């Protein structure tokens, strides 16, 4: 009999962000987004609950970032690495395009997220190589 797996750290953080966002939007009166975020929390919660029990397909569990075993962890890691690479390239492209078309001025949010991504990239490499 399969045992229920713990919720992944990614889903704990994502659920926290979504719940906090839904409450924030409700408090500030942005009702449409509050409802959308609440619906996302409900859908994600159900997906995670199913995946934790090992129910459904391997694709649905990896899609929920709730891998059940080592093969699904490998698949999830490879897929999210692709997301990370794409994010860095996309954000770098936006950064360069803004700087080139706005006399060197860049949206501070774009610059900040790029710096955070680069820092996570550096730390991630250090941790991965050390554990390798």
């Amino acid at each position, binding site marked *: 009999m399969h045992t229920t797996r713990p919720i992944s750290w990614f889903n704990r953080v994502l659920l926290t962000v979504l719940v906090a966002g839904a409450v924030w939007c409700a408090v500030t009166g942005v009702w449409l987004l509050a409802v959308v975020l609440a619906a996302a929390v409900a859908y994600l919660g159900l997906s995670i609950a199913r995946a934790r029990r090992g129910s459904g397909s391997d694709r649905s569990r990896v899609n929920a970032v709730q891998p059940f075993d080592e093969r*699904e962890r490998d698949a999830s890691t490879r897929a999210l690495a692709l997301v990370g690479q794409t994010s860095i390239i996309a954000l770098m492209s936006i950064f360069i395009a803004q700087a080139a078309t706005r006399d060197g001025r860049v949206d501070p949010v774009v610059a900040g997220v790029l710096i955070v991504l680069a820092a996570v990239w550096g730390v991630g490499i250090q941790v991965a190589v050390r554990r390798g």
Partner: protein
Amino acid sequence: MDNEVRRLRTERGLSQAALGAALGVSRQTINSLEAGRYDPSLPLAILLARFFATPVESLFHLPDESGPGRG
């Protein structure tokens, strides 16, 4: 990597789901293992070998090497 998992499992009358449950992995992972699409980690390979009471090198072999029952 080729392996004898499917043969040993069917000899024991086990389903992929039952073997997966015994080893703590999904049915799909057993299916991928048997199809040669996924090479297991060393811990999982050892668990499989222990489950079937056979040495790891008898359970898994390189594609150009003959396994048991292959002549």
